[in-house]
C-alpha cells in the first residue's frame, strides 16, 4: 500500500491519503497527468478500472471525475479524482478506454448523462439513456426534468423515430444472401429487456452488438429527489433478485458519512439478510441457466425452495421481494426468535433437495457437452475487463468483497473463496451452486451467533436494531462496496451540508462489464450459444441499465 501511495504521490496531486482498508484516495491537480498515472497504475497491477463517476458542482463551475482502479489479486485500490471544466465545449478529458477496456461503457455513460467528452474513445456513442435525452445530459444539476416531461408527445415521437431508423437499417440488410441482422430482444422469450443486434450468416454469428437501456429508470437521479431513507425505494430496485445486499451497500455509505457505526447485532442481522438475498437470487440464477437450454424443471424446483426463503423475508419485513428491510443505521425491524426457526426450516428444505439438484442437473451430460465449450473467460480477461463476482471466481480469480474488504459482520464469519478453474459457462453454473451451499453455511453461523449473543445478553434484539442517523448529513463522500449476488456492487455517495437528499449517488453495477463481454464471447459461435452464454453471465437488466 505504501508503495502505491508513493507512486501516486509522485504525480501532480493535491492530496494523497489512505482511505479505508484498501484504498488510496488522491486528487490530480491537472488532467494532463491522467494518462501517465493510469499507465503507471496499470503497470503496478491495478488492471481493472471499474468505473468513472462524474459529480457536478455548478457553484464551483467544475465537474469532478472519480476513477476507481482495482487490483483484484492484491486488494490494492486507487480512487483518483480530477477536476475538469463544466462548460460543454471544454468538458473533455483523455479517454482511458484504450488502456482499460473495462471502462468503455462507463465512459459512454458519463458522456450520455454528463456530457463529458472522452478524447480518444473508440466509439463515444450514447448508451443507456433513451432517445429523447440524447444531447441533453440529464444528470447535470441544471437539467430541467419537468420541462422535459412536459414535451411528452415530442419525446415519444423521438423514440419512435429512433426505432424507425433502426428498422430502416435492418430492412436494408434483408434479402442479401444469408447475411442478416437478427434482433435478439427486447421482446424475445429469453432476452429480457435488452437487445442484441446479432449479425448472422445463417446460423453462424459474425458479430454481436448489445443495445441496452430499455429499463433505464435514472435511479441515480431518482435518489437525488428523496431523503436518505426514502432513497431506499430506488436503491432496492436496482434488481429485484437480490434485494438486501444493495441496501447494505447504500446504508454503509450513509453511515460512513454520518460517522455513526451500527451495533454488532445489526451487523450480524445484515449478514443474515444479505445471505438470504443471495440465496434467493442464486436460486433464480441456477434455474435461469437451464432455462436457456429449454429445460425448466430446475427452475421450478429451485423456485420451490426459494419460496421458503421468501417466507423468511416476508416474516421479517412483510414483503417478499422489495423488502426495504435494511436502512441507514442498522436493520429496520427487531428480531423475533421465531424468525430463526423459519430460516432453519428453509435451510433444511434446501438441504433435503440438494442431492436431487446435483444428481440430475450438475452432472447432466447434455448440459456439460454444451456448456463446457462456450463462454470461456480466462483470468486475464477477468482482470482486464473488470469482471467480478461469480464470473470472476469461475475463472479462478480470488475476489470476494466479503473477504477482501469485510463489511457488516463478515469478519466474524468463517468462509473461503468459491472457485472453479476453466471459466466456462458450466463453471459459472457450478460456482453458483457452490455459493448457495456456502450461503447456507454462513446462515447457520449467523443463526448460531445471533442465538448465542441474545442468550448471553450481548445483543438486545429489541433495542439494537437501529441507531439514529440524522436527517441532514455533513459535507462528505464515501465509497461503499459489497459482494452482491451478481458481483461487486460499488456506490459512490456525495452529500452536501444541510441537504436532506443525496447530492450524487453513482452505482457501479456488475452487469455492465459482464454484458460488454458478450461481443467477445459470442463472436464465431452459433445462434444456439447466445442464450447459454448470456444466461451463464448472470446478467440482470435492472442493474445493467439502472
Amino acid at each position, binding site marked *: 500500500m505504501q508503495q502505491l501511495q508513493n507512486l501516486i504521490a509522485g504525480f501532480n496531486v493535491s492530496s494523497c491519503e489512505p482511505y479505508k482498508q484498501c484504498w488510496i484516495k488522491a486528487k490530480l491537480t491537472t488532467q494532463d497527468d491522467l494518462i501517465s498515472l493510469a499507465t503507471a497504475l496499470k503497470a503496478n497491477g491495478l488492471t481493472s478500472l471499474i468505473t468513472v463517476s462524474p459529480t457536478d458542482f455548478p457553484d464551483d463551475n467544475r465537474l469532478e471525475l472519480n476513477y476507481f482502479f482495482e487490483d483484484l489479486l492484491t486488494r490494492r485500490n486507487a480512487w483518483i479524482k480530477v477536476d475538469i471544466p463544466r462548460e460543454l465545449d471544454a468538458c473533455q478529458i483523455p479517454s482511458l478506454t484504450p488502456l482499460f477496456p473495462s471502462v468503455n461503457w462507463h465512459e459512454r455513460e458519463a458522456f450520455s448523462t454528463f456530457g463529458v467528452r472522452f478524447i480518444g474513445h473508440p466509439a463515444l456513442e450514447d448508451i443507456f439513456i433513451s432517445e429523447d435525452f440524447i444531447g441533453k445530459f440529464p444528470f447535470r444539476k441544471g437539467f430541467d426534468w419537468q420541462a422535459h416531461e412536459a414535451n411528452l408527445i415530442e419525446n415519444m415521437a423521438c423514440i419512435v423515430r429512433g426505432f424507425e431508423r433502426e428498422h430502416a437499417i435492418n430492412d436494408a440488410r434483408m434479402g442479401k444472401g444469408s447475411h442478416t441482422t437478427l434482433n435478439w430482444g427486447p421482446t424475445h422469450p429469453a432476452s429480457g429487456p435488452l437487445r442484441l443486434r446479432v449479425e448472422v450468416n445463417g446460423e453462424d454469428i459474425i458479430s454481436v452488438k448489445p443495445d441496452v437501456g430499455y429499463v433505464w429508470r435514472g435511479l441515480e437521479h431518482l435518489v437525488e429527489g428523496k431523503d436518505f431513507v426514502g432513497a431506499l425505494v430506488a436503491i432496492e430496485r436496482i434488481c429485484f433478485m437480490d434485494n438486501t445486499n444493495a441496501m447494505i451497500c447504500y446504508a454503509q455509505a450513509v453511515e460512513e458519512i454520518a460517522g455513526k457505526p451500527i451495533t454488532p447485532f445489526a451487523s450480524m442481522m445484515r449478514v443474515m439478510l444479505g445471505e438470504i438475498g443471495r440465496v434467493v437470487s442464486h436460486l433464480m440464477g441456477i434455474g435461469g441457466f437451464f*432455462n436457456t437450454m429449454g429445460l425448466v*424443471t430446475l427452475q421450478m424446483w429451485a423456485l420451490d425452495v426459494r419460496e421458503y426463503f421468501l417466507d423468511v423475508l416476508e416474516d421479517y419485513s412483510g414483503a417478499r421481494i422489495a423488502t426495504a428491510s435494511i436502512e441507514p443505521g442498522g436493520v429496520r425491524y427487531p428480531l423475533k426468535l421465531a424468525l430463526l426457526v423459519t430460516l432453519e426450516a428453509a435451510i433444511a428444505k434446501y438441504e433435503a433437495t440438494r442431492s436431487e439438484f446435483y444428481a440430475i442437473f450438475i452432472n447432466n451430460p*447434455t448440459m456439460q457437452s454444451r456448456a463446457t465449450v462456450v463462454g470461456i473467460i480466462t483470468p486475464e480477461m477477468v482482470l482486464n475487463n473488470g469482471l467480478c463476482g461469480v464470473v470472476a471466481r469461475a475463472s479462478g480469480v480470488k475476489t470476494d468483497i466479503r473477504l477482501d474488504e469485510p463489511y457488516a459482520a463478515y469478519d466474524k464469519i468463517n468462509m473461503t473463496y468459491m472457485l472453479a478453474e476453466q471459466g466456462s459457462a458450466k463453471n459459472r453454473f457450478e460456482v453458483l451452486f457452490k455459493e448457495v451451499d456456502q450461503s447456507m453455511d454462513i446462515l447457520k453461523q449467523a443463526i448460531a451467533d445471533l442465538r448465542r449473543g441474545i442468550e448471553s445478553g450481548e445483543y438486545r434484539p429489541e433495542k439494537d436494531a437501529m441507531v439514529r442517523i440524522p436527517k441532514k448529513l455533513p459535507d462528505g463522500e464515501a465509497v461503499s462496496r459489497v459482494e452482491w449476488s451478481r458481483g461487486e456492487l460499488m456506490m459512490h455517495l456525495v452529500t452536501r451540508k444541510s441537504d436532506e437528499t443525496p447530492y450524487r449517488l453513482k452505482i457501479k453495477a456488475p452487469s455492465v462489464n459482464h454484458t460488454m463481454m458478450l461481443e467477445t464471447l459470442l463472436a464465431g459461435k452459433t445462434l444456439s450459444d447466445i442464450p447459454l452464454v448470456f444466461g451463464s453471465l448472470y446478467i440482470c437488466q435492472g442493474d445493467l441499465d439502472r
Partner: protein
Amino acid sequence: MELLFNILVFPGLLFVLLWALFVFWFSRKVLAYIHKRVGPHYNGMGGSLQTVYDFAKLLGKESITPHNVNPYLFGLIPLLAPTLAMLTLVLLPWSPNLVVVNTQYGVLALVVLIGIEPFLLFLTGFGSNNKYSFLGGIRILTQMISMETSFFMAALAPALLFGTMNLVTIVESANWLTTLILLPGALLFFIAALGILAQPPFNIPDAEQEIVYGFYTEYTGTNYLLLKLAEFTEFLIVFAATVTLFFAGYRGDVFDGFAVLFFKMLVLAVVMITVRASTPRIRLDQMLRFAWTYLVPLSFLNLAWVLIAKVYLLGGS
C-alpha cells in the same frame, strides 16, 4: 356407412380431437408432477376442461396474416398439415378387427406419411416472411433429413424380421422373443421420432430461447390451433406406430383390444415427457453429429442384428 364412421368418428376426426384434448392435458399434468407443480387444476375434474377452454380460446382469436406473405401458402398449410397427418390413421390396426386400409405396403406408407409432415412445417417457416420462422424452417428441414434415415432404417427392422410390410401381420406375429429382438430397433425408432417431431432434446426448430417459436412464430388463433392439432396427431401416429411395429400393437397378455394399445401409447407419452423434463436442448451441430455418426450407423447395425437373430434365434425362413 362404416367408412363414414371411420372417417368422422373412429379412428378419424372425433378421435383425433379427443386425443389432442386428452394428451395435451395429460402431458401438462405429468410435466407439472415432475416440476413439483399442480398443473391445470380449476376447470373440470383435475383441470381436465382446461384444454377445452384453451382450444375454444384459440378458435375465438383473430388469425393474423402478416404483411407481405403469400396468403394462400400461409393459410393453406394449417389445413394441409392436420389432414395429411390424419391420413396415416387409416393404415394402423387399432383393434383386432379395425384397420381401415389393410395393405401390403403398410410400413412403407406409414414412414412416408410421417416423414412428409416436416416438409409442410418447413413451408410454414418459408412462407411467414419472418427471420425467426425462416430459421426454424431451415432447422426443421436439416433435422428431418438427418433423422429420417435412421427412422426409416429402424422401421424396416420389424418388416425384415417378420418378412412382411403388412402392419396387421406384424402385430399378429409378434411375441415376447421378437419384441426383445426388436428392442434396440424400438429405441432407435423412438429417438429418431423425437427428432422428427422436434421434441426435446431435439426441439431445435422451435427453440424458444434462440429463435422465439421457430416456424410457429407468425401463426395465431385458428391457424395455430390447426398446426398444434397436426402436431398432436403426429404424436398419436408416432406412438401408435411404435407400439404397432415393435410392441405388438393392440395385443395384450390378458386381452386384446384398443385399450391395450392406448395404454402402451400412454407409457410412451410418459417416457417422452420425462425426457422433456430432464434433458436440455442440444445444439444444431451436435444434433447433426449425433444423427450421422451414431444414429445412422447404429440403425444399420440394428438391421444386421435383426437378420442374425432371424436366422439363428428364429430359425430363419
